[in-house]
């Protein structure tokens, strides 16, 4: 058969489109609701605003059944290891929306206890500003994520997450080697990253 008949990569491009179409319209959110933004998510998901219009209504409180993490509220240093664990447990491919200023940057809580942005410990795809964001903004954030998914290649997500798993392995090695708790290990990694002038540990 003449292989030249088919132009290069037509099939893969089309597959990507089909897969991404399916992916972006069937996001299963995992609400990691810690604070006030979680209350607004209730409003977003219930009747008036209805997140179901965007195919993202199937809330799953188990990370293993979901592929979109909504971080709703302040993440404290005490919570950071839990967040990493839960992110690691989620089904692949996975995306993260950081909702509200507390999750995105620490917000008004510039204190000893608050993690200054979740993007220091896990990769974030979309940031939604607001304290708390209105349900409309949350929906807009989901739509932005859908646009992003549409443009992704199939392997891109894998490479993206590989860095996180690598950092997780580093964290576990650190814990085993020095006998640290997960929180201490993350702290060491953040300090190390800070000395290298990087803001993130993955």
């Amino acid at each position, binding site marked *: 058969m003449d292989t030249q008949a088919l132009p290069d990569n037509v099939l893969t491009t089309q597959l990507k489109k089909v897969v991404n179409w399916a992916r972006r319209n069937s996001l299963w959110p995992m609400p990691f609701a810690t604070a006030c933004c979680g209350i607004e998510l209730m409003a977003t998901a219930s009747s008036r605003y209805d997140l179901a219009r965007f195919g993202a209504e199937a809330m799953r409180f188990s990370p293993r059944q979901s592929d979109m993490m909504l971080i709703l509220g302040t993440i404290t240093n005490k919570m950071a290891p839990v967040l990493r664990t839960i992110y690691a447990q989620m089904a692949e491919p996975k995306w993260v929306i950081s909702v509200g200023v507390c999750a995105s940057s620490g917000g008004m809580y*510039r204190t*000893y206890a608050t993690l*200054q942005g979740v993007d220091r410990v896990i990769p974030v795809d979309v940031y939604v500003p607001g304290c708390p964001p209105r349900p409309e903004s949350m929906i807009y954030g989901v739509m932005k994520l859908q646009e992003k998914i549409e443009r992704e290649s199939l392997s891109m997500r894998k490479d993206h997450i590989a860095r996180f798993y690598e950092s997780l392995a580093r964290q576990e090695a650190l814990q085993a080697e020095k006998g640290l708790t997960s*929180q201490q290990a993350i702290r060491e990694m953040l*300090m190390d990253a*800070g000395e290298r002038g990087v803001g993130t540990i993955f």
Partner: protein
Amino acid sequence: MIIEHIDAQLPGTVTDRHAFRGDQTIVIAKENLLAVVELLYREGFQLLVDITAVDWPERPNAQGAEGAGRFDVVYHWLNLASQERLRVKVPVAEGESVPSLTGTFKTADWFEREVFDMFGIRFDGHPDLRRLLTWPDFPGHALRKDFPLDGGDVFCMEGCTAPYNNGERGERS
């Protein structure tokens, strides 16, 4: 009213008193705390509303054991029958401990743990004095005045653009 009663029953325990904006306050030494609490409980002050502390590092005798120490442990009581409130302050120096009220008030348990967590004041006789809000290896005690707001901790602040602590890292004990 209750203050006069305490004065009559346990003379000499109330070392200082004031009523600012209608809040009755008495200051007692920590040795007398349990006796006063027992009296209060009998007199109907059965709702222990709150336990907290205030740090006064610049008090003249903050380090000494005589008289006022560095911290004030502050108790608030409410008498449900007469709706009378009473604030009891117990000065305590650094490193000293206060008798725990967990024997009389179950609610004292977590409040005392919180004071221990935030100020490092120990409570004698507390069944389980662990940190409540922060994590076990937290460096220092957050609400002391010499503890920096950002914790002086890289874990919290490195990578932020604004300088913290005048660009110097705080001590991590």
